[in-house]
């Protein structure tokens, strides 16, 4: 009991470090993706760190709120809080941090859905048509993608017997997962397609419409929440694709520093690879309007494929 309490207290700084790392990297990741997309499309692009500067400048500026939409500040804060909560529940570098027992795939997907919903509701506040249309598009996409989440969770549950993220990753980390790796990779891809709104052409224009009537600190909070949501989706999918990169706790104690450094390197590598995938998706595929249906189809296809591969592996493998 004492060892567990001690481990919990020793894990708290690690959890803080994880959250700070995620928050620090989130705008850089989006900046990097934008920079790559613009560079590969032959346009000049600002530095990846520019987005952080912009968010900070927004936070210092005096805000503007549409008359009658006084709840915007509260909504923006709640949206950022939901993104931070999701960030706490998804391991990036090490498994078994404090609060890991709370993490569940459906809960994290729901919290990330809350982020998207917060953006949509903030945009619907002033009641104007353009932002409203963009917000309704976001809400519709979110509702449609709810269909995919239970299938992904079913794959995780059937393959490993648990749906909690920490337990799932620990089992994949420990056990002989030769037959389970492919279905879980497919499920992670399905999760990424369903969850990431920003991978598709036109997403930036839609986000500009969405946040046209929000300025100042509210806008900064919403932009940071968007960036965090993207990074959390990528981290979650990366964890499911390569759980071996995560540092494991030794007994009840936190992981050793070398294991943590290796875990950090693996996380950077996974995120970089997924960023490259995101850039490819944004350059190659789909406008947003067609994208929603195609995304649903693709995500469902990957989810079902994951189930098929899982059972094919059990029957023939």
């Amino acid at each position, binding site marked *: 009991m004492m060892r567990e309490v001690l481990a919990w207290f020793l894990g708290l700084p690690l959890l803080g470090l994880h959250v700070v790392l995620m928050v620090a990297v989130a705008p850089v990741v989006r900046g990097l993706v934008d920079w790559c997309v613009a560079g590969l499309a032959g346009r000049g692009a600002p530095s990846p760190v520019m987005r952080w500067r912009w968010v900070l400048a927004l936070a210092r500026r005096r*805000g*503007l*709120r*549409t008359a*009658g939409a*006084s709840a*915007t500040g509260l909504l923006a*804060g709640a949206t*950022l*809080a*939901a993104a931070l*909560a999701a960030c706490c*529940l998804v391991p990036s570098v090490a498994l078994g941090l404090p*609060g890991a*027992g*709370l993490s*569940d795939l459906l*809960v994290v997907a*729901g919290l990330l*859905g*809350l982020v998207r*919903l917060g953006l*949509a*509701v903030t945009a*619907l*506040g*002033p*009641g*104007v*048509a*353009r*932002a*409203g*249309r963009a*917000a*309704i*598009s976001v809400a*519709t996409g979110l509702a449609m993608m*709810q*269909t*995919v989440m*239970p*299938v992904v*969770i*079913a794959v995780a*549950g*059937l393959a490993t017997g*648990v*749906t909690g993220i920490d*337990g799932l990753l620990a089992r994949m980390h420990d056990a002989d997962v030769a037959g389970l790796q492919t279905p879980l990779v497919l499920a992670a891809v399905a999760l990424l397609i369903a969850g990431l709104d920003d991978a598709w052409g036109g997403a930036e224009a839609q986000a500009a419409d969405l946040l046209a*009537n929000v300025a*100042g*600190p509210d806008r900064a*909070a919403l932009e940071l929440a968007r960036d965090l949501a993207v990074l959390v989706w990528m981290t979650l999918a990366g964890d499911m694709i390569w759980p071996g990169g995560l540092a494991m706790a030794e007994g009840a104690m936190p992981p050793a520093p070398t294991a943590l450094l290796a875990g950090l390197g693996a996380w950077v590598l996974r995120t970089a690879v997924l960023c490259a995938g995101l850039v490819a998706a944004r350059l190659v595929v789909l406008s947003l*309007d067609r994208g929603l*249906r195609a995304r649903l189809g693709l995500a469902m296809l990957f989810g079902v494929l994951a189930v*098929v591969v899982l*059972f*094919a592996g059990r*029957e023939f493998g």
Partner: protein
Amino acid sequence: MPVPAAAIRAGWALALVLGLAMACLPALVYVPLQSSGRSMPAALLAVVRVDALSLPFVLVISAVGLASGTAERPLAPSALAGAALAATTGHPVLFGVGAATVLPMIHAGRGVAWGVLAGAVATALLADGGGAAMGGWRLAILPAPVLLFAALLMGLSPRPLSGARRVRPAGAGELAGFVLGCCLLVRMLVDWPAGRIGASWGMGIGGIGLLLAMAGGGRALTARDAPRVLAGMLAAWGGVAMLLVGLAVVGRADDLPLLALGAARTLFLLPAGAGMAVLAAILVTSGITREAGPLVLARVGGLAALMPRAGATLALALAIACALPPLAGFAVLWLLVQSLLALPRADGLAGEIPSLLALCGGGIVSGLLLLAGVRMGAILLLGRPRTPRCAAAADLSPARLGAALSCLGVAGAVSVLPGLWLWLTRAAGWQVAALGGAVPLGAAVPDGARPSPLSLSAAGGTGTFYPAGIVLLFGLCGGVVLMLSRLGGALPARPTVAWTEGAPPSPPWMPFGDPATQAGPGLFVGRLDAVLGLTRLLRGPVRGLLRAVRWVGRRAAELDDRAAALTARHAMALVLAWIVVASLIRMWAG
């Protein structure tokens, strides 16, 4: 003689307190009345007493009765009283009569006759063969009338689109019907049949429930006014309840007590969490209607600024009812997904397909509920007012919001501490799972079947959900955001007008702005339709299919007419032929 409202409330409060006492001290439920059963009152008490399985439903109905004293419809209290009496009766005949009496009070039209008939058939099937005699054909046909009766009580319908004629606006009576429908399904399919209903019937009931839930979600999304949106949401949750009863039937039939227990607990969580939230929304919308006029979604708007208290209550109630995490509606869906994962499977991929389809269906229901809730909340509360009456609306006083807030408080408490409610209803769960409701209570129950105070456990042991932990984490993160914004010294925001992209100001005959420049309720449905191409589908192959079905129907009617004419012309010959054939069969058989 009219009964004063205060007396009615006192009665409901007494019922609630007694129910809570029974839940806390289960020995009260198991007072051995049968031993002194020779006297008439004792026998009567033994028949109509509140047993463990009725208790969750009686508690919810008492809370509904207590809260809905200010309801608009005068019939609500009597319907509620009837529902409570029916739910308490531990006897099939009295239960059937009570439920059939409630039905006309909350519904009108042809459905009532069908419902009463179905209820009578189900009661007859149960009443005669209450003992070991029941089996075989009775068990095989029992679910059909029960499903029909429950569907009518809960207002379920296969229509996916909402129309003013077809869908009644939601009221407290509808919620009573919902709770009674849940009780009826559990009682008639799980508790009273002497034998176990087959697992295939359980899958069938679950499938029908899922389809009805999707149709209810569709009605909620396409409804034109707020009360009908709530009616659609209630119907969607009713379908989910039916699915859960199907899972409980499967769990009992296949000897999987933990599956039956998980499904039963989810079913008890449903009326206390999502049901009470919908009731809070019903009460708030009824208060808002008095101030701002009829809540037709195309005309109202901007109520969050004009009625902040009522608006916040409605938003929170909708958040629970449309299953946002980590609230009670979400907890129900989480448990549902976990129960579906715990379903028994045949080997291989083919055995997996039904549960995968059910999981997809659950996702569709959750998406429809989410979109319907966002549509109603956004259109009612956000934007700008669109009618003079709406623009002049004043906020509801805290006294008028009291009932809604208390319902919301119950739903919130169930959201944060679902284990407390599951502990109160633990005996009912064990009874459904056939884990022994014997005295002393819980003596024969394994440790894994005892509810945990802070968490919800999956039926198959695949996960644990801590709503209080998630709420705490959310609160901590919110505190950090607040602290950072205070430390950053953010300047107060300046009010401004919304950017209309340079469009000219609306003309004087449009005092509430040009509707073309505002987001309206039709956009939600239109967007979904544009993405999925549903209308195109209806215009193309589905319309062709309907035409073909009608053509086949016409041909069948012609054949039927010809057959009737032939029969009429050669009736005597046919009778003779029938006698000859019957005699031959009789001789051959025996």
